[in-house]
């Protein structure tokens, strides 16, 4: 990230992470501290509270658990169920794995980007959708594959993808 982007992200983090959220994280830490293996559950619950794990929240957890912030970041970037950027109400994942790619899943991605005016890794202005590009989802038989929240859609055509998304308000 460039300096500007970092500053911008920090500003959003400060806006979205409220004092109330920190109080809730305090009580999570209180419950787990001094217990071995507490980092993952604490991060999970902190993510539930904040929606994602921005830098200040990670540092806050690190200090609370008497750990190094680098180690916390290491764990937060290792497991795919942690996210460092805010996620929309609905998460769209488009598969770019080999099978899907061959079936032109990139066109689906481009369509969504254009229609929702966002890039991969971003969130729409109304916070309704966020977009992710993923590697093989293990459903190659259905290629090209799009996953919205927990629902998997196979054989998706670029022209039809917006109809699918309409179902998620």
């Amino acid at each position, binding site marked *: 990230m460039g300096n500007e982007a970092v500053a911008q992200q920090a500003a959003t983090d400060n806006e979205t992470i409220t004092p109330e959220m920190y109080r809730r994280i305090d009580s999570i830490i209180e419950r787990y501290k001094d217990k071995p293996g507490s980092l993952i559950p604490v991060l999970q619950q902190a993510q539930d509270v904040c929606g994602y794990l921005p*830098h200040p929240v*990670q*540092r806050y957890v*690190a*200090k609370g658990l*008497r*750990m*190094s*912030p*680098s*180690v*916390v*970041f*290491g764990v937060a*970037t*290792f497991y*795919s169920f942690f996210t*460092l950027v805010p996620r929309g109400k609905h998460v769209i994942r488009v598969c770019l794995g080999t099978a899907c790619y061959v079936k032109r899943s990139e066109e689906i991605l481009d369509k969504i980007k254009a229609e929702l005016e966002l890039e991969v890794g971003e969130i729409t202005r109304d916070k309704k959708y966020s977009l992710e590009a993923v590697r093989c989802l293990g459903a190659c038989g259905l290629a090209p594959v799009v996953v919205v929240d927990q629902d998997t859609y196979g054989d998706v055509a670029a022209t039809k993808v917006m109809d699918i998304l309409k179902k998620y308000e």
Partner: protein
Amino acid sequence: MEITVTVDGKAVKVKAGATILDAAKAAGSRVPTLCHDNKLHPFGACRICLVELEGSPRKFTPSCTTPAIDNMVVRTSSPALIEARRMILELLLIKHPLDCPVCDKAGECRLQDLVHEYGLGESRFDAEKGYLPPDYESAVIERNISRCILCGKCVRICDEQNAVGEWAFTRRGTRTRISTDFDRPLDCEFCGECVEICPVGALTTRQFKYKARSWSLEGTPSVCNYCGCGCPVSFERRDGKIMRVSPARENYLCAKGRFGWDAVHHADRLTTPKMRVGGELVDCTWDEALAVIATNLKVIKNKRGADSIGGLGSVRTTNEDNYVFQKFMRAVIGTNNVDTLARLKAPRGLNTAFFSGELSRMGGHEVILMLDKDAGEINPLTGIEVVRAVNKKGRNLILVNGGYNKFNKIASVVLDYNTPEVALAELLQAMSSGTGSDAIKKAAEMLKGAGSVALIVPAFLTDKEYARTREFASQLKNVTFYPLVRRSNFQGSLDMGVLPDYYPGYQKANAETTASFAKAWDAILPETAGMNAVQMIDGIKSGKLAALYIMGDDPAASNPNLKALLDGLEFLVVQDIFMTETARIADVVLPAASWVEKTGTFTNLERRLQQIRSAEEPVAESRPDWEIIQALAKKMGGSLHYGSARDIMNEIRSTTPLYADLAPGSIWPQEKSPLAGADADLSLSSDVINKKEVIAAERLLFSSGMTITRSKEIGTIRHNC
């Protein structure tokens, strides 16, 4: 218990619990390693250390993580092993750029050595190197991620030894790398230990960048001059110039020890003597400068008496320099007015109530009670030994800290108090009556049950805290003290008698001692009591003191009041390595050689005598302090005839029983000191508290750190040092 292991046909005995790698070493077989280091917990990441075990179902076994067992038969080399190691290397080379020609690590890189040994130039695997640009964002240290082999040594040393944990493995799969949180620049202790331990050129220092090839370097063993720990260093030189400093004996160096030596190349270095002519300091010859000093000091002595002249010695120069300095003040000037300013901030009870234990024995104590949370900043090695004791030996740390720092991460109990006084009072209460908060009770239990306790004594104690600490210590069985001593040769300056009331070796300046030194030195010695540093400052105010000779200290830098006072002196001589604030107001300024340019000894906070050796020629016309004093003595008709620092040490041994048979590298035993158990305090810090008007900015005055502030490299670290 010992077990027998046969390695490559050779039977060796090793301790039970030893690894196969240890056994192979004992048998003289060389097994390559990348991720293993004796300092660290075993990790088993690289697998280059594979060996074959007879009768094992597994084809290969990593030797660094596998314990040896009795009657094991090991083979460290075979065609199959060589093939396996080649394969491992090839996998490592998938991403590695092998840019040895521009890598500072070349010549001491494990990967380069192995690639050479196993005859590999490149990997058969996909040639796409996944290049990531080097990271220049941090101070002092550069990270070249493409060269990283993910051995985890940096991660482990920073966590296990430093308790900082600045590096971590982050991300996953092929994107795994070592980084900080959110890839921010380093904000750590900048000790450079991660660079030192990195087996490849993934971490390098900016200071050494493109400076020299490692094989062209020649090491001179010496000692760091930045704090009382006195870490052994190796000045690594090329063409008579220092290029890099490394720890000698593989122990540890902090940022100051590793990078701070460049201060001696600062533009502020004094190159010629200077004297004041018409209000200006102008360059002059040695002869002129010494003549001016001799004349002025003689005039003042005749007019006002020898006791109107004072001398301030240095806690940064050698024992030899300080011995000669106090001898000059006593035998040539004829006064006992000799002291160091460092005593104003000296730790209370040092060498009387609190003799220091050996740092390397920290791990031998069951419980460590850390009364000063800043121990690691004042004496970095002391802090490291505490971390090692906890992480390697599993010792319990009780920490008194009202805030949060790295020691909170490893402490068994944290006592949330800002000063030790209340914590100690409550601990005493809990130890006798069992009452108190949970943390206090837990700590009291630990202390009561411990067979031995290490007490990290704070650097600064008020009268009340000092009394409380002593009372507390008397309640502990088997307690060892670890006082914090800022300046490298503070101990030596005390030992050498740079004290108004003691001759070298704490021999009280009474009639008897004076007579015996008069005989040894063949001189007439003063009988009047001398002024200490506080009294000298008062003396300037009252007019009792007319002239001051300052060797290697800069009181004016941090305190305008003191500067004005010094400016009012009739005659001021400053002998230093830099053009300091104090030098600027002096009448004569003499250029001294720095510690990297001379030979002699320091005595560290453990009371260990250590040899320092010259690694560079003295800058321009500068000379070792003792040589300057000797030349001046000659001009004043005194007789000092030393040919070398060694001659001085020989005299010290004959006049100072503490040093009589003290070999370099050894510690003088506390029982031998005349002050052992005495109710004396060599610190003047309690006087300072009562004299706030004289020394307003006291904190700054004592930690001015005149040398380290001139290190360019340390200057790039945003941190306070």
